[in-house]
Protein backbone atom coordinates (compact mmCIF):
# COMPACT_ATOMS: atom_id res chain seq x y z
CA UNK A 1 0.00 0.00 0.00
CA UNK A 2 1.20 3.49 -0.87
CA UNK A 3 -0.14 6.48 1.05
CA UNK A 4 0.66 10.14 0.50
CA UNK A 5 -0.46 12.62 3.13
CA UNK A 6 -0.24 16.22 1.97
CA UNK A 7 3.18 15.71 0.44
CA UNK A 8 5.07 18.68 -0.98
CA UNK A 9 8.39 18.83 -2.72
CA UNK A 10 9.99 22.11 -3.69
CA UNK A 11 13.29 22.40 -5.55
CA UNK A 12 13.34 26.16 -5.10
CA UNK A 13 10.84 28.62 -3.68
CA UNK A 14 9.38 29.12 -7.14
CA UNK A 15 9.86 25.62 -8.48
CA UNK A 16 7.31 23.41 -6.79
CA UNK A 17 7.38 19.82 -8.02
CA UNK A 18 4.58 18.54 -5.79
CA UNK A 19 2.10 20.60 -3.85
CA UNK A 20 0.21 18.99 -0.95
CA UNK A 21 -0.48 15.74 -2.76
CA UNK A 22 -2.58 13.13 -0.97
CA UNK A 23 -3.75 9.76 -2.23
CA UNK A 24 -3.79 6.11 -1.31
CA UNK A 25 -3.05 3.10 -3.49
CA UNK A 26 -4.17 -0.20 -1.97
CA UNK A 27 -2.09 -3.33 -2.31
CA UNK A 28 -2.45 -4.98 -5.71
CA UNK A 29 -3.97 -2.01 -7.52
CA UNK A 30 -2.91 -0.92 -11.02
CA UNK A 31 -2.68 2.86 -11.24
CA UNK A 32 -1.66 5.20 -14.03
CA UNK A 33 -0.14 8.50 -13.07
CA UNK A 34 -0.84 10.91 -15.85
CA UNK A 35 0.24 14.44 -16.54
CA UNK A 36 2.25 16.56 -18.91
CA UNK A 37 6.02 16.83 -18.70
CA UNK A 38 7.00 18.73 -15.59
CA UNK A 39 3.78 17.89 -13.76
CA UNK A 40 5.70 16.12 -10.96
CA UNK A 41 5.24 12.46 -11.96
CA UNK A 42 8.92 11.54 -11.75
CA UNK A 43 9.31 13.38 -8.44
CA UNK A 44 6.34 11.48 -7.04
CA UNK A 45 7.90 8.15 -8.01
CA UNK A 46 11.31 9.19 -6.67
CA UNK A 47 9.72 9.97 -3.34
CA UNK A 48 8.33 6.45 -3.18
CA UNK A 49 11.70 4.76 -3.80
CA UNK A 50 13.51 7.29 -1.62
CA UNK A 51 15.62 8.97 -4.26
CA UNK A 52 14.23 12.20 -2.88
CA UNK A 53 12.68 13.27 0.39
CA UNK A 54 9.59 15.40 0.72
CA UNK A 55 9.73 18.87 2.20
CA UNK A 56 6.37 18.37 3.83
CA UNK A 57 3.94 15.58 4.46
CA UNK A 58 4.18 11.86 5.10
CA UNK A 59 4.62 8.95 2.72
CA UNK A 60 3.80 5.46 3.89
CA UNK A 61 4.88 2.48 1.82
CA UNK A 62 3.50 -0.72 3.27
CA UNK A 63 3.05 1.09 6.55
CA UNK A 64 6.63 2.46 6.69
CA UNK A 65 7.14 6.19 6.73
CA UNK A 66 9.72 6.37 3.97
CA UNK A 67 10.33 10.08 4.44
CA UNK A 68 11.75 9.33 7.87
CA UNK A 69 13.57 6.17 6.87
CA UNK A 70 17.23 6.12 8.02
CA UNK A 71 19.67 6.09 5.10
CA UNK A 72 20.87 2.61 6.01
CA UNK A 73 17.34 1.18 5.72
CA UNK A 74 16.64 2.55 2.24
CA UNK A 75 18.26 -0.40 0.39
CA UNK A 76 15.97 -2.81 2.20
CA UNK A 77 12.91 -0.81 1.14
CA UNK A 78 14.15 -0.70 -2.45
CA UNK A 79 14.41 -4.47 -2.53
CA UNK A 80 10.61 -4.53 -2.27
CA UNK A 81 10.13 -1.99 -5.04
CA UNK A 82 10.90 -2.59 -8.70
CA UNK A 83 11.56 0.47 -10.85
CA UNK A 84 11.50 0.77 -14.63
CA UNK A 85 12.61 3.85 -16.58
CA UNK A 86 12.06 5.24 -20.02
CA UNK A 87 15.70 4.77 -21.00
CA UNK A 88 16.08 1.25 -19.53
CA UNK A 89 19.37 1.87 -17.66
CA UNK A 90 20.88 -1.43 -18.67
CA UNK A 91 24.63 -1.95 -18.30
CA UNK A 92 25.94 -2.33 -21.81
CA UNK A 93 29.05 -4.36 -20.94
CA UNK A 94 27.03 -6.91 -18.99
CA UNK A 95 24.98 -9.74 -20.45
CA UNK A 96 21.22 -9.87 -20.09
CA UNK A 97 21.65 -12.51 -17.41
CA UNK A 98 24.04 -10.27 -15.48
CA UNK A 99 21.76 -7.28 -15.92
CA UNK A 100 18.77 -8.99 -14.37
CA UNK A 101 20.73 -10.81 -11.64
CA UNK A 102 21.91 -7.84 -9.61
CA UNK A 103 19.45 -8.28 -6.78
CA UNK A 104 19.85 -12.07 -6.35
CA UNK A 105 23.61 -11.52 -6.31
CA UNK A 106 23.28 -8.82 -3.65
CA UNK A 107 21.11 -11.18 -1.63
CA UNK A 108 23.83 -13.83 -1.79
CA UNK A 109 22.21 -16.29 -4.20
CA UNK A 110 24.72 -18.74 -5.65
CA UNK A 111 25.40 -18.84 -9.38
CA UNK A 112 22.94 -21.67 -9.97
CA UNK A 113 20.14 -19.92 -8.09
CA UNK A 114 20.89 -16.65 -9.91
CA UNK A 115 20.62 -18.48 -13.23
CA UNK A 116 17.36 -20.16 -12.22
CA UNK A 117 15.78 -16.89 -11.14
CA UNK A 118 17.02 -15.06 -14.22
CA UNK A 119 15.67 -17.76 -16.51
CA UNK A 120 12.30 -17.81 -14.78
CA UNK A 121 11.95 -14.03 -14.89
CA UNK A 122 13.21 -13.62 -18.43
CA UNK A 123 10.72 -16.33 -19.46
CA UNK A 124 7.93 -14.15 -18.05
CA UNK A 125 8.98 -11.34 -20.38
CA UNK A 126 9.67 -13.69 -23.28
CA UNK A 127 13.44 -13.29 -23.37
CA UNK A 128 14.80 -16.47 -21.80
CA UNK A 129 16.60 -17.25 -25.03
CA UNK A 130 18.60 -14.00 -24.86
CA UNK A 131 20.32 -14.56 -21.51
CA UNK A 132 23.79 -14.46 -23.03
CA UNK A 133 23.15 -11.50 -25.31
CA UNK A 134 24.27 -7.97 -24.60
CA UNK A 135 21.79 -5.05 -24.42
CA UNK A 136 23.08 -3.53 -27.65
CA UNK A 137 22.02 -6.69 -29.47
CA UNK A 138 18.37 -6.21 -28.45
CA UNK A 139 15.64 -3.96 -29.79
CA UNK A 140 14.26 -1.12 -27.67
CA UNK A 141 11.19 -3.15 -26.70
CA UNK A 142 13.36 -6.11 -25.72
CA UNK A 143 15.63 -3.88 -23.67
CA UNK A 144 12.65 -2.51 -21.82
CA UNK A 145 11.48 -6.05 -21.13
CA UNK A 146 14.93 -6.84 -19.69
CA UNK A 147 14.62 -3.76 -17.47
CA UNK A 148 11.22 -5.03 -16.32
CA UNK A 149 12.71 -8.47 -15.64
CA UNK A 150 15.40 -6.82 -13.51
CA UNK A 151 12.70 -4.95 -11.61
CA UNK A 152 10.54 -8.00 -10.89
CA UNK A 153 13.15 -10.72 -10.35
CA UNK A 154 12.65 -10.59 -6.60
CA UNK A 155 8.84 -10.44 -6.92
CA UNK A 156 8.53 -6.92 -5.52
CA UNK A 157 5.44 -5.72 -3.71
CA UNK A 158 5.39 -2.56 -5.80
CA UNK A 159 6.42 -1.90 -9.39
CA UNK A 160 7.00 1.70 -10.44
CA UNK A 161 7.44 2.67 -14.08
CA UNK A 162 8.47 6.13 -15.21
CA UNK A 163 7.45 6.74 -18.84
CA UNK A 164 8.24 3.11 -19.67
CA UNK A 165 7.01 3.41 -23.24
CA UNK A 166 8.53 6.80 -23.96
CA UNK A 167 11.11 5.34 -26.31
CA UNK A 168 8.88 2.71 -27.91
CA UNK A 169 6.46 2.65 -30.84
CA UNK A 170 2.73 2.11 -30.15
CA UNK A 171 2.65 -1.65 -30.72
CA UNK A 172 5.65 -2.24 -28.46
CA UNK A 173 4.10 0.13 -25.92
CA UNK A 174 0.97 -2.03 -25.82
CA UNK A 175 3.14 -5.12 -25.25
CA UNK A 176 4.90 -3.44 -22.34
CA UNK A 177 1.63 -2.31 -20.77
CA UNK A 178 0.30 -5.85 -21.16
CA UNK A 179 3.36 -7.08 -19.27
CA UNK A 180 2.55 -4.68 -16.45
CA UNK A 181 -1.01 -5.98 -16.43
CA UNK A 182 0.27 -9.56 -16.16
CA UNK A 183 2.62 -8.60 -13.33
CA UNK A 184 -0.24 -6.84 -11.55
CA UNK A 185 -2.38 -9.96 -11.86
CA UNK A 186 0.20 -11.81 -9.82
CA UNK A 187 -0.46 -9.40 -6.94
CA UNK A 188 2.10 -6.66 -7.46
CA UNK A 189 0.95 -3.07 -7.00
CA UNK A 190 1.78 -1.24 -10.24
CA UNK A 191 2.14 2.52 -10.69
CA UNK A 192 2.91 3.66 -14.22
CA UNK A 193 3.71 7.31 -14.85
CA UNK A 194 3.03 8.49 -18.39
CA UNK A 195 2.24 11.60 -20.33
CA UNK A 196 0.80 9.45 -23.12
CA UNK A 197 -2.92 8.69 -22.65
CA UNK A 198 -2.96 6.22 -25.55
CA UNK A 199 -1.21 3.56 -23.49
CA UNK A 200 -3.88 3.66 -20.77
CA UNK A 201 -6.29 0.73 -21.27
CA UNK A 202 -9.85 1.74 -21.98
CA UNK A 203 -11.44 0.66 -18.75
CA UNK A 204 -10.94 -0.69 -15.27
CA UNK A 205 -7.87 1.28 -14.34
CA UNK A 206 -7.38 4.00 -11.84
CA UNK A 207 -5.80 7.19 -13.11
CA UNK A 208 -4.21 9.93 -11.01
CA UNK A 209 -3.77 13.15 -12.92
CA UNK A 210 -1.05 15.61 -11.93
CA UNK A 211 -0.80 19.16 -13.18
CA UNK A 212 1.78 21.67 -12.00
CA UNK A 213 2.55 19.48 -9.03
CA UNK A 214 -1.06 19.21 -7.87
CA UNK A 215 -3.24 16.14 -7.99
CA UNK A 216 -6.21 17.35 -9.99
CA UNK A 217 -7.98 14.08 -10.81
CA UNK A 218 -8.33 10.69 -9.19
CA UNK A 219 -10.64 8.59 -11.31
CA UNK A 220 -11.55 5.12 -12.44
CA UNK A 221 -12.12 4.59 -16.17
CA UNK A 222 -15.38 2.81 -16.69
CA UNK A 223 -16.44 3.23 -20.28
CA UNK A 224 -15.26 2.59 -23.79
CA UNK A 225 -15.25 6.31 -24.49
CA UNK A 226 -13.21 7.26 -21.44
CA UNK A 227 -9.78 7.31 -23.02
CA UNK A 228 -11.01 10.01 -25.36
CA UNK A 229 -11.64 12.18 -22.39
CA UNK A 230 -8.18 11.59 -21.13
CA UNK A 231 -6.60 11.81 -24.52
CA UNK A 232 -7.62 15.35 -25.33
CA UNK A 233 -5.92 17.93 -23.19
CA UNK A 234 -8.82 20.33 -23.52
CA UNK A 235 -11.44 17.78 -22.59
CA UNK A 236 -12.30 16.88 -19.05
CA UNK A 237 -12.90 13.23 -18.21
CA UNK A 238 -16.59 12.64 -17.99
CA UNK A 239 -16.84 9.76 -15.56
CA UNK A 240 -15.92 9.61 -11.91
CA UNK A 241 -13.84 12.75 -12.00
CA UNK A 242 -15.98 14.05 -9.19
CA UNK A 243 -14.53 11.49 -6.80
CA UNK A 244 -12.86 13.16 -3.85
CA UNK A 245 -9.10 13.08 -4.09
CA UNK A 246 -7.37 10.50 -1.94
CA UNK A 247 -10.35 8.16 -1.77
CA UNK A 248 -10.29 4.61 -3.00
CA UNK A 249 -13.29 3.89 -5.06
Amino acid at each position, binding site marked *: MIQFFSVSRRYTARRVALDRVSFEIPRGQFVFLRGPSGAGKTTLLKLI*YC*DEVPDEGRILVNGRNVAALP*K*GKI*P*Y*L*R*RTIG*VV*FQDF*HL*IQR*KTIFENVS*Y*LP*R*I*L*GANAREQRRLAYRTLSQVGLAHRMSSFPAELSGGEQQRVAIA*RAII*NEPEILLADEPTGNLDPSLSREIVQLFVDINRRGTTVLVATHDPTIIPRSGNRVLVLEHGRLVRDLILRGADEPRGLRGDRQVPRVDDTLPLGRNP
Partner: protein
Amino acid sequence: MTLLQALAFFLREALVSIRRSFKISLLAVVTIAVSLFVGGIFLLLTRNLNRIVMEWRGEARVVVYLAQDAPEGEAERLAGEIRRLAWVSEVEEITSGEAERRFTEAFPSLGGLFSDWEGPTLPSSLEVAYDAEAVDPRELSAWQGELARDPAVALVDDDREWLRQIERLVALLRGIGLLLGAVLLSAAVFTIASVVRLTVYLYREEIAVLRLVGATEFFIRGPFLVEGLLQGLLGSLLAAAGLFLSFRLIASQALPSIFGSVLFDRFLSPGDLLLVGVVGSLAGLLGSILSLRRDDGSLFN
Protein backbone atom coordinates in the same frame (compact mmCIF):
# COMPACT_ATOMS: atom_id res chain seq x y z
CA MET B 1 25.45 -12.48 1.40
CA THR B 2 27.98 -13.52 4.02
CA LEU B 3 30.99 -11.35 4.82
CA LEU B 4 33.31 -13.88 3.16
CA GLN B 5 31.18 -13.91 0.00
CA ALA B 6 31.12 -10.11 0.05
CA LEU B 7 34.91 -9.89 0.40
CA ALA B 8 35.39 -12.38 -2.44
CA PHE B 9 32.99 -10.30 -4.54
CA PHE B 10 34.81 -7.06 -3.67
CA LEU B 11 38.16 -8.58 -4.60
CA ARG B 12 36.83 -9.93 -7.90
CA GLU B 13 35.24 -6.62 -8.82
CA ALA B 14 38.35 -4.67 -7.78
CA LEU B 15 40.57 -6.87 -9.95
CA VAL B 16 38.19 -6.48 -12.90
CA SER B 17 38.27 -2.72 -12.40
CA ILE B 18 42.08 -2.59 -12.18
CA ARG B 19 42.31 -4.67 -15.36
CA ARG B 20 39.76 -2.48 -17.08
CA SER B 21 41.62 0.75 -16.34
CA PHE B 22 45.08 -0.79 -16.25
CA LYS B 23 47.13 2.24 -17.23
CA ILE B 24 45.72 4.64 -14.67
CA SER B 25 45.85 1.94 -12.01
CA LEU B 26 49.50 1.39 -12.89
CA LEU B 27 50.11 5.11 -12.47
CA ALA B 28 48.62 4.97 -8.98
CA VAL B 29 50.67 1.90 -8.08
CA VAL B 30 53.92 3.46 -9.36
CA THR B 31 53.23 6.75 -7.55
CA ILE B 32 52.75 5.01 -4.26
CA ALA B 33 55.76 2.77 -4.92
CA VAL B 34 58.03 5.78 -5.56
CA SER B 35 56.94 7.54 -2.37
CA LEU B 36 57.38 4.39 -0.29
CA PHE B 37 60.73 3.72 -1.95
CA VAL B 38 62.06 7.16 -1.01
CA GLY B 39 60.68 6.80 2.52
CA GLY B 40 62.13 3.28 2.64
CA ILE B 41 65.64 4.47 1.69
CA PHE B 42 65.59 6.90 4.61
CA LEU B 43 64.25 4.18 6.87
CA LEU B 44 67.07 1.91 5.73
CA LEU B 45 69.71 4.60 6.41
CA THR B 46 68.36 5.56 9.82
CA ARG B 47 67.94 1.93 10.88
CA ASN B 48 71.55 1.12 9.98
CA LEU B 49 72.88 4.29 11.57
CA ASN B 50 70.85 3.66 14.71
CA ARG B 51 72.19 0.14 14.95
CA ILE B 52 75.76 1.36 14.57
CA VAL B 53 75.23 4.07 17.19
CA MET B 54 73.83 1.49 19.59
CA GLU B 55 76.83 -0.77 19.00
CA TRP B 56 79.27 2.08 19.45
CA ARG B 57 77.47 3.31 22.49
CA GLY B 58 78.12 -0.06 24.12
CA GLU B 59 81.80 0.26 23.28
CA ALA B 60 82.14 3.91 24.24
CA ARG B 61 85.45 4.85 25.84
CA VAL B 62 87.06 7.86 27.44
CA VAL B 63 90.58 8.29 26.05
CA VAL B 64 93.04 10.20 28.22
CA TYR B 65 96.00 11.46 26.17
CA LEU B 66 99.12 12.10 28.20
CA ALA B 67 101.25 15.15 27.74
CA GLN B 68 104.46 14.52 25.78
CA ASP B 69 106.48 15.91 28.63
CA ALA B 70 104.72 13.96 31.34
CA PRO B 71 107.24 12.42 33.77
CA GLU B 72 107.63 8.68 33.71
CA GLY B 73 105.29 6.79 35.98
CA GLU B 74 102.45 9.31 35.51
CA ALA B 75 100.59 6.87 33.31
CA GLU B 76 100.63 4.25 36.04
CA ARG B 77 99.57 6.79 38.66
CA LEU B 78 96.64 8.00 36.61
CA ALA B 79 95.62 4.43 35.68
CA GLY B 80 95.66 3.47 39.35
CA GLU B 81 93.48 6.43 40.32
CA ILE B 82 91.04 5.76 37.54
CA ARG B 83 90.73 2.04 38.33
CA ARG B 84 89.57 2.97 41.82
CA LEU B 85 86.39 4.52 40.40
CA ALA B 86 83.46 2.14 40.89
CA TRP B 87 81.94 2.53 37.42
CA VAL B 88 85.20 2.01 35.52
CA SER B 89 85.39 -1.49 34.12
CA GLU B 90 88.77 -1.44 32.41
CA VAL B 91 91.76 0.82 31.89
CA GLU B 92 94.18 -0.01 29.11
CA GLU B 93 97.51 1.73 28.75
CA ILE B 94 98.43 2.50 25.16
CA THR B 95 102.04 3.41 24.68
CA SER B 96 103.22 5.70 21.91
CA GLY B 97 104.58 2.68 20.03
CA GLU B 98 101.30 0.79 20.35
CA ALA B 99 99.34 3.85 19.11
CA GLU B 100 101.65 4.08 16.09
CA ARG B 101 101.17 0.37 15.36
CA ARG B 102 97.37 0.70 15.54
CA PHE B 103 97.42 3.72 13.25
CA THR B 104 99.57 1.95 10.67
CA GLU B 105 97.25 -1.07 10.83
CA ALA B 106 94.11 1.04 10.30
CA PHE B 107 95.62 3.22 7.56
CA PRO B 108 98.31 1.18 5.82
CA SER B 109 98.78 3.74 3.07
CA LEU B 110 99.81 6.33 5.67
CA GLY B 111 102.26 3.98 7.37
CA GLY B 112 105.33 5.75 6.01
CA LEU B 113 104.32 8.96 7.70
CA PHE B 114 106.32 8.16 10.82
CA SER B 115 109.45 6.75 9.18
CA ASP B 116 111.39 10.04 9.23
CA TRP B 117 110.00 11.11 12.57
CA GLU B 118 112.37 11.38 15.52
CA GLY B 119 111.20 10.55 19.02
CA PRO B 120 107.64 9.52 19.97
CA THR B 121 105.15 10.21 17.24
CA LEU B 122 101.76 9.69 18.83
CA PRO B 123 101.06 10.42 22.51
CA SER B 124 100.61 7.65 25.05
CA SER B 125 97.09 7.28 26.30
CA LEU B 126 94.75 5.50 28.68
CA GLU B 127 91.60 3.94 27.26
CA VAL B 128 88.96 3.88 29.92
CA ALA B 129 85.98 1.56 29.48
CA TYR B 130 83.05 2.21 31.79
CA ASP B 131 79.55 1.08 32.59
CA ALA B 132 77.36 3.85 31.17
CA GLU B 133 74.40 2.61 33.23
CA ALA B 134 76.28 2.93 36.48
CA VAL B 135 77.45 6.52 36.14
CA ASP B 136 75.53 9.76 35.98
CA PRO B 137 76.48 11.64 32.76
CA ARG B 138 77.04 14.84 34.75
CA GLU B 139 79.41 13.02 37.14
CA LEU B 140 81.24 11.63 34.12
CA SER B 141 81.64 15.10 32.62
CA ALA B 142 82.82 16.57 35.94
CA TRP B 143 85.37 13.81 36.32
CA GLN B 144 86.66 14.47 32.78
CA GLY B 145 87.04 18.19 33.56
CA GLU B 146 89.00 17.41 36.70
CA LEU B 147 91.21 15.00 34.79
CA ALA B 148 91.89 17.55 32.04
CA ARG B 149 93.32 19.92 34.65
CA ASP B 150 95.97 17.35 35.65
CA PRO B 151 99.40 18.58 34.36
CA ALA B 152 100.19 15.08 33.03
CA VAL B 153 97.10 15.08 30.83
CA ALA B 154 97.07 16.72 27.38
CA LEU B 155 93.55 15.92 26.31
CA VAL B 156 90.49 13.97 27.46
CA ASP B 157 88.44 12.67 24.56
CA ASP B 158 84.93 11.37 25.19
CA ASP B 159 83.24 9.17 22.53
CA ARG B 160 79.87 10.43 23.72
CA GLU B 161 80.37 13.75 21.97
CA TRP B 162 80.64 12.38 18.43
CA LEU B 163 77.98 9.76 19.20
CA ARG B 164 75.71 12.67 20.04
CA GLN B 165 76.59 14.24 16.71
CA ILE B 166 75.77 11.02 14.86
CA GLU B 167 72.49 10.80 16.76
CA ARG B 168 71.66 14.33 15.66
CA LEU B 169 72.45 13.31 12.09
CA VAL B 170 70.19 10.24 12.42
CA ALA B 171 67.38 12.41 13.79
CA LEU B 172 67.86 14.87 10.92
CA LEU B 173 67.81 12.04 8.38
CA ARG B 174 64.70 10.58 9.99
CA GLY B 175 63.00 13.97 9.90
CA ILE B 176 63.88 14.55 6.24
CA GLY B 177 62.74 11.02 5.40
CA LEU B 178 59.46 11.47 7.24
CA LEU B 179 58.81 14.83 5.62
CA LEU B 180 59.72 13.68 2.13
CA GLY B 181 57.80 10.43 2.60
CA ALA B 182 54.75 12.30 3.88
CA VAL B 183 54.78 14.72 0.94
CA LEU B 184 55.18 11.93 -1.59
CA LEU B 185 52.63 9.77 0.18
CA SER B 186 50.14 12.64 0.08
CA ALA B 187 50.71 12.85 -3.65
CA ALA B 188 50.16 9.10 -3.88
CA VAL B 189 46.94 9.31 -1.85
CA PHE B 190 45.75 12.08 -4.15
CA THR B 191 46.61 9.99 -7.21
CA ILE B 192 44.77 6.96 -5.88
CA ALA B 193 41.80 9.14 -4.96
CA SER B 194 41.73 10.46 -8.52
CA VAL B 195 42.00 6.98 -9.98
CA VAL B 196 39.21 5.64 -7.81
CA ARG B 197 37.09 8.71 -8.56
CA LEU B 198 37.56 8.05 -12.23
CA THR B 199 36.58 4.42 -11.71
CA VAL B 200 33.50 5.53 -9.79
CA TYR B 201 32.67 7.78 -12.72
CA LEU B 202 33.15 4.94 -15.20
CA TYR B 203 30.87 2.74 -13.10
CA ARG B 204 28.33 5.42 -12.21
CA GLU B 205 25.52 3.77 -14.21
CA GLU B 206 26.11 0.40 -12.58
CA ILE B 207 26.39 1.99 -9.14
CA ALA B 208 23.02 3.64 -9.74
CA VAL B 209 21.50 0.31 -10.77
CA LEU B 210 22.93 -1.34 -7.67
CA ARG B 211 21.44 1.37 -5.47
CA LEU B 212 18.14 1.13 -7.30
CA VAL B 213 17.75 -2.60 -6.73
CA GLY B 214 18.67 -2.30 -3.06
CA ALA B 215 22.40 -2.78 -2.64
CA THR B 216 23.77 -1.41 0.61
CA GLU B 217 26.52 1.21 0.59
CA PHE B 218 28.87 -1.44 2.02
CA PHE B 219 28.21 -3.60 -1.03
CA ILE B 220 28.60 -0.68 -3.44
CA ARG B 221 31.66 0.92 -1.92
CA GLY B 222 33.44 -2.30 -0.97
CA PRO B 223 34.98 -2.97 -4.40
CA PHE B 224 36.32 0.60 -4.61
CA LEU B 225 37.83 0.41 -1.14
CA VAL B 226 39.45 -2.91 -2.01
CA GLU B 227 40.69 -1.40 -5.27
CA GLY B 228 42.48 1.40 -3.41
CA LEU B 229 43.80 -1.07 -0.86
CA LEU B 230 45.12 -3.34 -3.61
CA GLN B 231 46.78 -0.46 -5.42
CA GLY B 232 48.45 0.57 -2.17
CA LEU B 233 49.53 -2.98 -1.45
CA LEU B 234 50.90 -3.48 -4.96
CA GLY B 235 52.76 -0.17 -4.64
CA SER B 236 54.24 -1.38 -1.34
CA LEU B 237 55.37 -4.65 -2.87
CA LEU B 238 56.95 -2.78 -5.77
CA ALA B 239 58.67 -0.41 -3.32
CA ALA B 240 59.93 -3.31 -1.18
CA ALA B 241 61.30 -5.07 -4.27
CA GLY B 242 62.96 -1.83 -5.41
CA LEU B 243 64.46 -1.29 -1.97
CA PHE B 244 65.84 -4.81 -1.84
CA LEU B 245 67.37 -4.62 -5.31
CA SER B 246 68.86 -1.20 -4.57
CA PHE B 247 70.22 -2.47 -1.26
CA ARG B 248 71.87 -5.43 -2.95
CA LEU B 249 73.33 -3.26 -5.65
CA ILE B 250 74.68 -0.58 -3.29
CA ALA B 251 75.83 -3.07 -0.69
CA SER B 252 77.74 -5.14 -3.25
CA GLN B 253 79.52 -2.08 -4.60
CA ALA B 254 79.91 0.00 -1.46
CA LEU B 255 80.58 -2.52 1.29
CA PRO B 256 84.36 -2.37 1.10
CA SER B 257 84.19 1.27 2.15
CA ILE B 258 83.30 2.55 5.60
CA PHE B 259 80.27 4.36 4.07
CA GLY B 260 78.85 1.14 2.67
CA SER B 261 79.52 -0.95 5.73
CA VAL B 262 77.83 1.62 7.95
CA LEU B 263 74.84 2.69 5.89
CA PHE B 264 74.02 -0.46 3.97
CA ASP B 265 75.05 -3.20 6.32
CA ARG B 266 71.63 -4.76 6.90
CA PHE B 267 68.34 -4.71 4.98
CA LEU B 268 65.04 -3.73 6.56
CA SER B 269 63.61 -6.14 9.12
CA PRO B 270 60.37 -8.07 8.40
CA GLY B 271 58.67 -5.63 10.78
CA ASP B 272 59.87 -2.65 8.74
CA LEU B 273 58.72 -4.31 5.50
CA LEU B 274 55.35 -4.94 7.11
CA LEU B 275 55.26 -1.26 8.05
CA VAL B 276 55.91 -0.31 4.40
CA GLY B 277 53.07 -2.64 3.34
CA VAL B 278 50.67 -1.31 5.95
CA VAL B 279 51.46 2.34 5.16
CA GLY B 280 50.99 1.70 1.43
CA SER B 281 47.73 -0.17 1.90
CA LEU B 282 46.37 2.47 4.27
CA ALA B 283 47.36 5.22 1.83
CA GLY B 284 45.42 3.38 -0.90
CA LEU B 285 42.45 2.89 1.37
CA LEU B 286 42.53 6.55 2.37
CA GLY B 287 42.59 7.54 -1.31
CA SER B 288 39.47 5.45 -1.92
CA ILE B 289 37.68 6.83 1.13
CA LEU B 290 38.47 10.40 0.06
CA SER B 291 37.19 9.78 -3.45
CA LEU B 292 33.98 8.13 -2.23
CA ARG B 293 33.21 11.01 0.13
CA ARG B 294 32.08 12.99 -2.90
CA ASP B 295 29.55 10.32 -3.82
CA ASP B 296 26.23 11.55 -2.48
CA GLY B 297 24.36 8.28 -2.89
CA SER B 298 22.03 9.53 -5.60
CA LEU B 299 20.72 7.38 -8.42
CA PHE B 300 20.55 8.37 -12.08
CA ASN B 301 21.23 12.04 -12.77
